[in-house]
């Protein structure tokens, strides 16, 4: 279920540049990268006790991060989005949400970004030397190419 | 023929019994487990798969014997022998009938327990020498388990020794001949004084012979394959064989102590005397079947639970029971 946009706005009032909007995905709060930890802390204090999902999207210019938070007691969900440049560094949110530990490692490795403040910032899924696979500039063979081989 | 020749023949006979037993028991295990698990077990090689284990033994013999580089070579080679030989030794005192036995030892019961208690030393050697952490854990478990259960196993059977007045296995069997009220056999299992004794004996002997639910040192779902992880070819074969042999010995001891050994009360004495070994084997195999039944059904107990059961329950209970049954036996006679 979706929370009221105004509620989330009130939670993020202290953060410069935070915008809240309702889209197809749900209620989305966009915050600057530097304020992610602060925003998540504020939202967690309001009862959103679980980070359900975390992933990154390569938009072609930068990487968009999506934190999906849920409150089981209030039965509400909110998305927090932020952006980071290629090769940039994101601050780990594991202290607020331990469930971000592995998804952060996976996102960092598959989208080629760095992790700061993470207790175990190793690769998760692939081995050394594999390029950040989910970046759009990393191409794989298409079905047609495989067939033509 | 001189004494040494006869002795050698007897050892050979025990060895042959052990090997044939191993092959038969493995086939039986696979069939019993198969049918317990809605399967058929081996069906293809020979009639109903009877030759399957023979072929498996041939396969084991012809396989490459791998010795990993990091192992302690001498201990690694010695360990299967240390497991196999005591298991073979334990056959010496078993009374297959009033005349079929390798030796007639007055301390036969103690001797058999002693022989069996050497096996875990071999297991510990195998675990240590393998240079594998899983093997090491398996070996350590075997040692801990051994120390914890040797005591209740021995204590549990003392009431029988007190009643019979002998630790000779043959004498113990002879004390169980005849019938009660003309119908029931005079087996010790039917004597209420020995029911706790029997329970403690069953649990402690399952632990001693490393059978499910106490197969701590092997524990394939926890320790990969425990102490035998690094063994291959016939070295593994020896470890595997002695496991079945220990099961046989424990079952045979149970039959001797509680189920009247080679005797069967309803048959005339000459028939029993002639069929003694057969009766003994059938009873032993029934015991082994029960062990396999448990193996096919029960989950494994955790190591700390095993230790707790041994030290905190079985040893005090068996001590109390020795005192109690001693008084009963004294008052009765």
């Amino acid at each position, binding site marked *: 279920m979706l929370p009221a946009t105004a509620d989330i706005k009130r939670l993020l009032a202290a953060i410069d540049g935070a915008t809240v909007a309702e889209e197809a*995905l749900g209620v989305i709060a966009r915050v600057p990268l530097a304020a992610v930890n602060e925003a998540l802390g504020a939202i967690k204090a309001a009862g959103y006790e679980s980070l359900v999902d975390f992933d990154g*999207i390569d938009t072609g210019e930068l990487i968009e991060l999506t934190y999906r938070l849920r409150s089981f007691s209030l039965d509400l969900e909110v998305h927090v989005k932020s952006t980071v440049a290629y090769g940039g560094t994101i601050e780990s949110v594991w202290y607020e949400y331990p469930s971000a530990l592995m998804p952060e490692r996976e996102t960092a490795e598959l989208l080629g970004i760095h992790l700061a403040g993470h207790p175990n910032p190793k690769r998760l899924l*692939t081995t050394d030397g594999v390029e950040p696979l989910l970046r759009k500039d990393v191409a794989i063979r298409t079905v047609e190419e495989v067939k033509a081989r | 023929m001189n004494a040494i020749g006869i002795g050698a023949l007897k050892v050979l006979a025990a060895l042959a019994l052990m090997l044939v037993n191993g092959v038969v028991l493995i086939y039986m295990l696979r069939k019993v487990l198969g049918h317990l698990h809605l399967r058929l077990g081996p069906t293809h090689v020979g009639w109903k798969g009877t030759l399957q284990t023979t072929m498996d033994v041939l396969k084991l013999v012809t396989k490459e014997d791998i010795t990993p580089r990091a192992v302690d070579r001498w201990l690694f080679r010695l360990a299967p022998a240390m497991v196999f030989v005591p298991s073979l030794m334990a056959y010496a005192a078993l009374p297959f009938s009033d005349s079929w036995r390798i030796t007639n030892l007055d301390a036969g019961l103690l001797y058999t327990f002693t022989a069996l208690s050497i096996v875990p030393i071999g297991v510990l050697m195998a675990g240590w020498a393998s240079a594998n952490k899983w093997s090491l854990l398996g070996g350590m478990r075997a040692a801990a388990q051994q120390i914890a259960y040797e005591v209740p196993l021995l204590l549990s059977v003392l009431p029988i020794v007190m009643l019979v007045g002998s630790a000779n296995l043959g004498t113990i069997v002879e004390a169980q001949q005849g019938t009660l009220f003309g119908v029931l056999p005079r087996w010790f299992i039917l004597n209420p004084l020995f029911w706790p004794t029997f329970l403690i004996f069953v649990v402690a002997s399952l632990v001693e012979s490393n059978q499910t639910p106490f197969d701590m040192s092997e524990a394939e779902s926890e320790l990969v394959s425990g102490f035998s992880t690094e063994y291959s070819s016939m070295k593994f074969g020896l470890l595997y064989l002695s496991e079945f042999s220990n099961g046989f010995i424990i079952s045979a001891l149970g039959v001797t102590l509680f189920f009247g050994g080679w005797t069967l009360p309803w048959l005339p004495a000459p028939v029993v005397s002639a069929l003694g070994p057969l009766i003994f084997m059938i009873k032993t195999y029934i015991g082994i079947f029960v062990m396999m039944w448990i193996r096919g059904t029960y989950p494994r107990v955790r190591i700390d639970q095993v230790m707790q059961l041994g030290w905190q329950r079985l040893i005090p209970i068996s001590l109390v029971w020795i005192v109690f049954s001693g008084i009963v036996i004294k008052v009765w006679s």
Partner: protein
Amino acid sequence: MNGGSEETLATGVLGEGRHDPGTPPAGLRRAPAGVDGLTTEHLIINMGPQHPSTHGVLRVLVEVDGEEVVAAEVSVGYLHRGIEKLAEYRRYDAVGTLLDRGDYISGMMAELAFALATEQLMDVEVPRKAHWLRSLASEINRITSHLIWYGTFGLDAGGMGQFLYGMRDREALLDILEALSGSRMMFNYIRPGGVLADMPTGLDAKIRAFLGTFDQYLDEHDQLLGGNEIFQARVKGVGVIDRSTALAFGLTGSNLRGAGVDFDVRKARPYAAYPELDFEVPLGTNGDAWDRYNVRMAEMRQSARMIGQLIDGMPEGPHMAKVPRIIRPRAGEVYASVESTRGETGIHLVSDGTEHPYRMHYRGPSLFAAQALEEILPGHLIADVVVIIGSTDVMLGEIDR
């Protein structure tokens, strides 16, 4: 003995956080060293990826003091196939094929999540029958998956008996799924817009015949494993995931409900035919392995109940909406989640209006269960490690993707 050279996992972009794989991460829980003040030298044991009880290729590094686990690190990635990347090169009707190979024991769930996500961007009216067939396929698949879990959980605890009894029932269900979808494991049955095929004639009788015996078989399973004293001693009080830990680590599904949190996507965010079905959500209290066992056994009963209702009330009509041969959803970003066997399977789908997804993120609930293991395992014995891994029912296909 532990001096061998293990390859470092961290280089490249993550190089600055170089970390010795032998020592578990700082910040996570470590059990207090030593029992009763007795400390011995610690041993680091590499459990998996070829260990018999790590359910595929899970690797757990456990630091043990004697047999007691002091710290644990979960290492995954041995089954990474790049499903998310490959999906960006597949057309929408072919992505299901990839998702089947995610959680390969219950492939229907991820297919359904993807179909639900795509339909949000498609302006398509999914026929009522398709909804019911989707629920039917999901519930049958849930039972097959739980039966596998039941068998292997018993194997982890050291029992062999229950495994093939579970397989017997699963076999009957796989035959039903084969009749329904044409395949036993890799279905690609649930597509955007509906389902691939209608129910073949005579299948409802077959399902009814199965349901007729299943309740009795389920009692038998429960007695065989759950009724065993030794098994109860192995699982009661072991691997406790309390409410706050479960929420903090993002657990969902039976692992979360075992801790007493009443959240089931089928009830909380109803999809497919679930709003019309009558079922209960079983809950645990302590969050130990025994609670998770009971929750899953009860879930199988509920699934069987739902299958009965789905067969009885199966509506008439088409099983597939009119969708174009090449699906081009409008541009946008959506999230759809379903209650899969292991928890909440979510698909985060970003479309740019072309015939391929722009980005598809697949949330595997097992990933969250696996990282929670690092928190739960310390303080238990090695024998408990395999039981706890079994009780959380992790599936490596959806962890590694």
